[in-house]
């Protein structure tokens, strides 16, 4: 028996409580689903199980024995195999070196036999029904889907007792998902215990035997998958009914004023030229599988990726070669990684908000403190940012509040084109609702709003129009009553067509 039992596990990062008493029990021979919103504590749980961080309290038991791995090696030795969401492949090492790291076939005096290593890697790939090819290639050169597959194979080569799959399907094609599911079922049938984490509820339903739902750092329900219809799962995840989170849609009239227009706008080679008109009051979403050119579209608009074609904002044609030029032209971006790209974590809330508008509130290069105070106080009030003192460093705030600070700064500039790149990722439901409301308000006020989301449900419920990208091309444009299934089908359907071609 390889039962995995977690009870009352707690973990805090600084002042943020990521896990506040989470329990989960997965039996040997079963595939156990773990669902929850971003920020519900799933990733923290994975980190604790895989030895990347240590729990503050509670207990984890595998096979009846206490499990407290102090390092990833210890976790692996204890039989925990983790397919990490961010992948754990070293970009500069070869496919073979990555696959067999730590279990190289022939090591003499610390020296690895390259021939034996490559042969073993080809052999391992063949065992998993994958074409081997050139295993001396550095992983850096592989596509995301290939890397994801490699990560899965690598984890299984260690023959774990517990297999953790953290969003392992996010980059996979339908055929690859089927391949993975067959592997996981075989693993469980052989007595293993698989923990499957996914945002795609359809996958949870088709693969898992039982499921546990996390919300805000604790388990809030679960049971056999057959007894939990999707609507019930969603309700558990959110803690309330779905409809209320999203503001009502407001599709633009056919003759509404065009506030922003893209003409043959692209970023070759990863984004083919596309035409797009954003009308007054309209919220336009961009979707599709990961890495299909969405990042390039937003980067090109914001001047971080070389672009081709033209952008018309109001009556003016823009050519933005840098973020500074884009900001001057009235384009603002809320990036995906707010910590790395958007905020100065060691600076205070005040400085982070006013940073983008210093030109407007300065005289002769000196910041007018009174005007700055008014600006910051207005933003903090408007967005209900929870902060004791506006001089407190942003790094200590919760993800949701950090995102609000970033939004305040962006909106303080009164942009004319507002770009949001997965702005609600890792943000709690309350903040999400705030962000959605703001997006609607901005659109209603005549700002062109374009957002990307990795969450199909969000796209379906929020956007008036959804563009689904695949391989740098717009595969579908959906409007009216948009369903999550339509978006997913368009995202993967295009792929399937191509795979058959």
């Amino acid at each position: 028996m390889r039962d995995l039992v977690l009870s009352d596990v707690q973990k805090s990062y600084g002042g943020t409580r990521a896990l506040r008493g989470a329990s989960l029990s997965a039996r040997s021979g079963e595939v156990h689903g773990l669902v929850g919103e971003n920020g519900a504590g799933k990733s923290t749980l994975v980190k604790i199980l895989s030895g990347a961080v240590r729990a503050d309290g509670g207990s984890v038991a595998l096979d009846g024995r206490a499990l407290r791995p102090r390092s990833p090696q210890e976790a692996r030795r204890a039989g925990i195999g983790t397919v990490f969401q961010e992948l754990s492949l070293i970009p500069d090492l070869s496919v073979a070196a990555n696959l067999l790291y730590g279990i190289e076939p022939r090591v003499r005096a610390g020296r690895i036999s390259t021939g034996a290593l490559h042969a073993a890697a080809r052999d391992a790939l063949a065992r998993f029904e994958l074409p081997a090819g050139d295993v001396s290639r550095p992983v850096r050169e592989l596509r995301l889907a290939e890397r994801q597959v490699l990560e899965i194979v690598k984890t299984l080569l260690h023959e774990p007792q517990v297999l953790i799959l953290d969003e392992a399907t996010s980059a996979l094609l339908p055929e690859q998902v089927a391949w993975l599911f067959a592997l996981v079922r075989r693993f469980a049938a052989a007595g293993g215990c698989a923990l499957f984490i996914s945002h795609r509820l359809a996958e949870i339903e088709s693969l898992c035997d039982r499921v546990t739902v996390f919300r805000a750092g604790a388990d809030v329900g679960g049971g056999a998958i057959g007894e939990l219809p999707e609507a019930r799962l969603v309700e558990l995840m959110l803690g309330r009914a779905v409809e209320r989170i999203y503001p009502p849609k407001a599709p633009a009239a056919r003759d509404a004023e065009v506030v922003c227009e893209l003409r043959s706008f692209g970023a070759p080679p990863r984004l083919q030229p596309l035409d797009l008109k954003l009308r007054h009051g309209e919220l336009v979403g961009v979707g599709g599988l990961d890495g299909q050119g969405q990042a390039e579209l937003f980067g090109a608009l914001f001047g971080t990726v070389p672009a081709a074609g033209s952008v018309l904002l109001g009556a003016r044609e823009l050519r933005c070669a840098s973020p500074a030029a884009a900001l001057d032209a009235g384009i603002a971006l809320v990036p995906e990684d707010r910590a790395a790209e958007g905020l100065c974590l060691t600076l205070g809330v005040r400085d982070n908000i006013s940073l983008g508008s210093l030109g407007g509130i300065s005289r002769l290069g000196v910041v007018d403190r009174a005007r700055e105070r008014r600006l910051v106080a207005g933003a903090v009030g408007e967005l209900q940012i929870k902060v004791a003192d506006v001089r407190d460093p942003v790094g200590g705030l919760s993800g949701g509040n950090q995102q609000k600070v970033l939004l305040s700064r962006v909106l303080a500039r009164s942009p004319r084109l507002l770009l949001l790149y997965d702005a609600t990722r890792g943000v709690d439901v309350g903040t999400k609702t705030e962000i959605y409301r703001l997006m609607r308000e901005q659109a209603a006020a005549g700002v062109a709003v374009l957002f990307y989301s990795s969450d199909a449900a969000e796209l379906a419920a929020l956007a008036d129009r959804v563009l689904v990208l695949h391989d740098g091309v717009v595969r579908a444009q959906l409007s009216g009553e948009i369903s999550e299934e339509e978006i997913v089908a368009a995202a993967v359907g295009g792929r399937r067509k191509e795979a058959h071609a």
Partner: protein
Amino acid sequence: MSATTADPRIDGGGRPLQRLLRAAGRAGLAAWMPYLYVAVLGGAIWALQPALIDGPGAVDVRFSAVVPLALVAFGQTLVMFTRGIDLAVGGVISTATALLATRGADGATLWLLIAAVVALGGVAGLINGVAVAVTRLQPFIVTLATWSIFGGVALLILPQEGGASPPALSEALLGSVLGVPKAVWVVALLLALWGWLRHTRLITDLRAIGSDEQRARLIGVPIARRTIQAYVLSGLFAALAGVWIAAQTGSGSPTAGDPFILSSVAAVVLGGTSIFGGTGSAAASIVGAIAFLLIPDLIAALQLESFWSTFFQGALLIAAVTVSSIAAQLKRRRGAA
């Protein structure tokens, strides 16, 4: 459709020759640049002043100068694999020459002295490694401090240039074996050492750390141990370079090592190793060292004032960095596609 025919292919395979060509193409232009620099510089010197290349003793002179830089660059490469840098090599070399120039020794005691000097280099590396790996200080700051400390130790031992290193030391290291200068043997030995070392767990781990430390931790690379090993090896190589310099010059200097700080980094960069870690080769660094040291000869062949040497060494470095930067961008574009 089954997964076998779908996209999870890792590569196309192909015949050995194709694979070799692909490997060469993958290594890219950057990997061939150090050899190109040596060929072009050597060719130019040979065309202008053949005696500088094929005159009597010319090879010995060239390689005697190459040996210490090749040694330091070897160690520096290992450190730079981890995204680190070792500035302390300057202090270690100076201390080594100062010690050798002030302690008369012969026979067995000479070997003991050399062993002590090399061990001291290892200790310096251990201090650096522990400071970087365990206390997680910036390599630049740590080794800047230890360079200064060991520079001070050198001054304490030998306040000014001079002293006399044991004649037996020079006898042991200079001259020829089997008609080939010992300096050439040393360089050949270093290249062979790299040939053996490059497939070791150590080098794989160092590359992994430099490539992505977070992920290296996840897959179980012993990060602290490997980082310390890299700095210890760098210290040992620096001390060996000091031994060679003492033998070569017959004296010591409290600042003998300082020029090697920047020239070793230059040799590594000329060899195509990225300062952002993960990739590179110590053999290429040695070739880079040769290229770097051909510049003064080219200046002599051109009969220019010697200060032009540093000018052109700098220019070569800029050119090399530009090439590797462009190559890296192309690679990234290809990798992302």
